[in-house]
């Protein structure tokens, strides 16, 4: 990847992380850990990969994005703000009673949100519906979704996996945010959904395993997904929950907890300093 693009994506990911942490801090609630783990993927999708237009959020031929792990809305909102869908100042209103920024993504009121999500397992199915619709009317837009690794304990994820392969939805690309942690601890201790790569492959998907924080690998995987015909693609993205904030990294306790003022200031300092 050329340096200019890499720098741009890195800066956008930093902006997304800062925005997500600011939103959760302002709300005194929300999900920072899984927001930070997907920031690099969101940066790549919204600033490089997807055909979207913040000035026309509902344009018919846009690529769609569904945050199946909807609780990490702070990262999505920070991404949409960074991309210009709405004012960044709104991030401070997350979860407030008079804000459009609901605790989980709300397609009715938030510009740029393509599907309301939050109840785990449902988003990937809705993404399948969008991809099937594109196939049915021979539209060439693509559909992207991010599914949590813990989320893949939901049976519906596998109903959707079966469906996408059955209908050869090669316009569907699902990232699995493999950060290894869920609310109650390690995914392998709580209810082991691994091996995710072998499971998706067995369900008939094109499977690519990458480092979720390496833009070159994200780019190569997205390109491979585009080139794969006849199968949906699952990008199993090995990530660090809480990535970029030292005390949140790899800590299940930061799944759904807001930082206090001191922690917030440290998080901002670390995220601002990181290269």
């Amino acid at each position, binding site marked *: 990847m050329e340096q200019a693009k890499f720098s741009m994506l890195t800066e956008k990911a930093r902006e997304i992380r800062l925005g997500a942490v600011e939103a959760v801090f302002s709300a005194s609630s929300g999900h920072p850990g899984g927001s930070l783990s997907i920031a690099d993927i969101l940066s790549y999708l919204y600033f490089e990969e997807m055909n979207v237009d913040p000035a026309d959020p509902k344009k*018919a031929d846009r690529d*769609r994005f*569904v945050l199946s792990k909807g609780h990490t809305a702070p990262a999505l909102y920070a991404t949409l703000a960074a991309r210009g869908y709405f004012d960044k100042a709104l991030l401070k209103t997350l979860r407030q009673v008079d804000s459009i920024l609901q605790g989980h993504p*709300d*397609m*009715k009121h938030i510009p740029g949100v*393509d*599907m*309301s999500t*939050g*109840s785990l*397992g*449902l*988003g990937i*199915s*809705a*993404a*399948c*519906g*969008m*991809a*099937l*619709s*594109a196939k*049915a*009317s021979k539209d060439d837009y693509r559909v992207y979704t991010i599914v949590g690794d813990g989320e893949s304990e939901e*049976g*519906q994820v596998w*109903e*959707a996996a*079966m*469906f996408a392969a*059955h*209908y050869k939805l090669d316009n569907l690309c699902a990232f699995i945010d493999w950060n290894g942690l869920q609310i109650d601890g390690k995914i392998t201790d709580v209810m082991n959904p691994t091996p995710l790569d072998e499971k998706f492959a067995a369900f008939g998907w094109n499977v690519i395993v990458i480092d979720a924080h390496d833009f070159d690998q994200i780019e190569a995987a997205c390109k491979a997904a585009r080139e794969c015909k006849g199968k949906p693609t699952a990008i199993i993205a090995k990530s660090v929950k809480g990535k970029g904030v030292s005390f949140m990294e790899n800590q299940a306790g930061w799944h759904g907890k807001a930082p206090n003022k001191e922690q917030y200031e440290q998080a901002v300092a670390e995220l601002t300093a990181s290269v």
Partner: protein
Amino acid sequence: MADKIATREAYGNALAELGEKYDIVVLDADLAEATKTLTFKKKFPERHFDCGIAEGNMMAVAAGIASTGKIPFASSFAMFAAGRAFEQVRNCIGYPHLNVKIGATHAGISVGEDGATHQCNEDIALMRTIPGMVILNPADGLEAKAAVEAAILHDGPVYLRFGRYAVPYLYDEANYKFEIGKGIKLAEGSDVTIVATGLMVHIALEAKELLAAEGISAEVINIHTIKPLDVEMITESAKKTGAVVTAEEHNIIGGLGGAVCEALAGTCPVPVVRVGVEDKFGKSGKVPALLEEYGLTAANIAAKAKAAIALKK
């Protein structure tokens, strides 16, 4: 034309006919032959998608399709459409108010021999609690077809409830008008109002005759739209007659009876007696025997009408 048709069959016929006129997409969950969406599939195979035995996924898939501008009909038995997939319907379809039509067949105990696991007497109650959900429960083949077209023309989620058991035609096509949210007065009366829905409408008309034989004048209203309820028509009738009986093939909790009680409590609190499945599970049997066993009969409606009249002040 046969003199009877199951509303599920009318549903399948309507989809196939209206598929020529509207850009609808039909989803099913391995029940196309039973829900009668097969009729549509034979005509428009490229617009029919089997989702397999995975109703939760199907509802969320329907939401995704609707978000792209198409009008999906997602079909299964009421038990699985409203029961199994309740949370998907609530969160993926209801909350974003997406333009999904849920074609739920085999509602109520008239499923018959399959028994309790497949007899959904709770779907109206479940769907009523979802804000913005329209609930249509047609009484005959003509009304079923009209309901399908009205659902297509309505922008937003609609739950359509169809039965497996053949019911008589009640209406002439020439004189029939379907409007979402508007009840249809089938008979004028002065002593008691019978508010019925679905399969129970023609049985309510029989009850009216039984009552007439005893000198009791019953008004009969067909409520094909359970939500939004025609509160105005029901209230006006309650004011006139002073007593109401509801009749539905559903639990007496949370269905038409519940809706009518909730409405009249605020507009015209008169005695209301509910005929329906009395908070029990169903069981296997021939449909006439089941209707008898669960009190879904003209005789029981007439008895309950007299009970309601006796409660008048």
